């Protein structure tokens, strides 16, 4: 093509750096939206050709589905793959094929338009179905529709589950259900148009230790499949069609980054203790059992946050007690005697399970989620608790309830724990006796009554991500206001101070498990505010440990006392910067501000 050279001109996009590292690779563009289909006319002499094109597209789609079916069957089992049988059947549906061909001939329109019209017509009957579950099957039909239309338009845009070789995943947005179907080993980096540094893609990228840049606005429209990309998760740059010069520059930066990482890993076997002998419990956050090796490899002691919902949302139906038990046990056994802290199912918000009722909520983050969901679905709650208590027989287990906003939730959840334990004993199961029960502190109301809550539980864990979101009333996925989402705000620091005070007064320990320790500031503040435990993504553990081991508890405590007198996040940042520059310049190297 004559204009190919112009097409491949180097372009640089700037976004929000969300996970450090530098990646080089081809783009895998994911587009879950509908393609624009226009009612273009087809000349009469080409109608037959258009019909043939339609039939060819059906065949191509069928072939695609056949391959996918085989792959799914190999990876997930025969049952999982069955749904694709019905997808293939839609392609051979007599009514659909005949109607589409009739439509092409009668209205002399292109196949994509005819097919879309016919299917949309069918889909309207689905809209009238009252049963939610059956209604949602319309999604399957839309999926088939997208595949056929894509093939008709000759676009090579793919679903995430089709990722079969290493590539950079480019998308408008990625939800937990999207990333759940990913073969994680093939993902070199994530880049998304929307989102902030704590959006789901960012969190996953960090837990996988791969770079991510988010909030790139319109990048996905400017990248074609297989375009060469460089992702710099440190500065937030994405380069499309890099020149050899640019490649060289970023390669050097990548080498430097890896060297620093390697140096940090040498700390793996040392404890997280300050220069003056204050020890803090340092543990890892995980979403899936496979991440346990990372936790150990990065030198964390146990798991401080096991987000159990990922086991639930990646499946089409609820996992049974036995399945959960086996899954949890694999994690606990590997880490014993170090603790594993299970956060009970936290669905809702942006984490929607396929089996969950499809409730349309205007404000999902303030809706039916966390403990609110499990207390109203006690069947699900009990099954999970049974599996966890049984797991506790094999190691050191802690249980934590998410999204606590009122006392009643804690009392009810504790009562159910007692019932479950009694049931299990009666059924002669071996269970762990000394399971600590705690709660997440992530709503302002929980902070306000922390003194009373502390009398009811064995520990607190402050979930900074949601606490910031609810306290500052800021949607963390909204890039227009994500500037407000900052853990250095005096309001957040005071909330943490008050929570720690309330916990220690009642003699219980308190940890932090959000993204806050992901910066040198956050780690210093967490230490100085007196938290007993820090749980973070594995990749952060070496850096947090390095920072803790470079300072004295005394100096950081007095630093934080002064910080608590400041009135803006900017002042807090400047004050901490000055402390680092004056007292501990070596810390500058770690976790630059860019990650926040």
């Amino acid at each position, binding site marked *: 093509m004559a204009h190919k050279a112009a097409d491949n001109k180097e372009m640089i996009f700037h976004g929000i750096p969300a996970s450090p590292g530098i990646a080089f690779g081809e783009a895998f563009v994911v587009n879950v939206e509908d393609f624009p289909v226009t009612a273009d006319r087809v000349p009469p002499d080409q109608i037959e050709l258009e019909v043939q094109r339609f039939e060819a597209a059906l065949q191509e789609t069928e072939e695609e589905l056949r391959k996918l079916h085989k792959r799914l069957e190999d990876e997930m089992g025969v049952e999982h793959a*069955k*749904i694709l*049988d*019905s997808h293939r*059947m*839609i392609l051979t*549906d*007599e*009514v*659909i094929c005949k109607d589409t061909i009739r439509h092409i001939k009668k209205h002399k329109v292109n196949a994509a338009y005819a097919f879309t019209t016919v*299917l949309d017509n*069918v889909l309207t*009957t*689905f809209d*009238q*179905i*009252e*049963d939610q*579950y*059956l*209604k949602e*099957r319309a999604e*399957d*039909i839309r999926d088939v529709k997208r595949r056929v239309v894509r093939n008709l338009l000759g676009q090579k845009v793919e679903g995430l589950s089709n990722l079969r070789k290493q590539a950079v995943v480019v998308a408008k947005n990625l939800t937990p259900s999207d990333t759940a179907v990913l073969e994680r080993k093939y993902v070199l980096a994530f880049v998304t148009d929307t989102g902030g540094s704590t959006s789901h893609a960012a969190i996953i990228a960090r837990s996988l230790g791969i770079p991510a840049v988010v909030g790139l606005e319109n990048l996905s429209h400017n990248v074609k499949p297989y375009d060469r990309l460089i992702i710099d998760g440190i500065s937030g740059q994405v380069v499309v069609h890099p020149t050899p010069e640019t490649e060289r520059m970023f390669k050097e930066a990548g080498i430097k980054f890896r060297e620093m990482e390697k140096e940090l890993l040498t700390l793996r076997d040392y404890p997280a203790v300050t220069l003056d002998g204050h020890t803090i419990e340092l543990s890892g956050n995980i979403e899936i059992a496979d991440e346990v090796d990372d936790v150990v490899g990065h030198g964390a002691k146990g798991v401080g946050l096991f987000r159990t919902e990922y086991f639930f949302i990646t499946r089409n139906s609820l996992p049974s007690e036995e399945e959960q038990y086996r899954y949890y046990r694999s994690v606990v056994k590997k880490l014993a005697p170090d603790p594993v802290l299970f956060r009970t199912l936290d669905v809702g918000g942006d984490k929607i399970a396929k089996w969950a009722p499809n409730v349309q909520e205007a404000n999902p983050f303030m809706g039916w989620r966390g403990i609110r969901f499990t207390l109203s679905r006690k069947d699900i709650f009990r099954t999970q608790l049974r599996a966890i208590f049984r797991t506790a027989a094999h190691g050191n287990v802690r249980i934590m309830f998410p999204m606590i906003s009122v006392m009643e939730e804690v009392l009810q959840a504790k009562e159910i724990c007692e019932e479950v334990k009694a049931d299990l004993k009666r059924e002669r199961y071996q269970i762990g006796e000394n399971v600590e029960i705690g709660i997440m502190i992530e709503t302002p109301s929980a902070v306000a009554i922390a003194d009373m809550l502390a009398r009811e539980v064995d520990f607190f864990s402050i979930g900074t991500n949601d606490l910031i979101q609810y306290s500052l009333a800021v949607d963390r996925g909204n890039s227009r206001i994500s500037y407000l989402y900052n853990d250095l705000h005096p309001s957040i620091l005071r909330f943490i101070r008050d929570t720690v005070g309330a916990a220690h007064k009642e003699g219980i320990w308190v940890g932090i498990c959000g993204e806050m320790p992901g910066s040198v500031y956050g780690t210093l503040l967490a230490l100085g505010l007196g938290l007993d435990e820090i749980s973070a993504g594995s990749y952060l553990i070496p850096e947090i440990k390095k920072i803790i081991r470079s300072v004295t508890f005394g100096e950081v405590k007095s630093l934080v006392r002064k910080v608590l007198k400041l009135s803006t996040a900017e002042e807090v940042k400047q004050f901490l910067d000055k402390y680092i520059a004056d007292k501990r310049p070596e810390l500058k190297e770690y976790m630059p501000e860019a990650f926040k």
Partner: protein
Amino acid sequence: MVSGMVKVIAKNGIHLRLASELVKAANRFRSEITISKDSQEVNAKSILGVAGLGAELGSELFIKADGDDESEALDYLIGLVESDFMKERR
């Protein structure tokens, strides 16, 4: 022409996967077969038609078959739904 009534006992109703089982079965017969629920009638050989009925647990389906193998077709399809799709062959 023969016809009969059957009640859906599949827990999640006749969703896409069960609909495909039903359509597969219907396609084995030469007769013209329709299924109706309430006032909606669809071709039993079209998966989108059958899935589009939204036949939830407890709903009643009216199956009609017309052709040289109509009785076998009707018996087989009613049996399939009644058996909860042979527990999805498990």
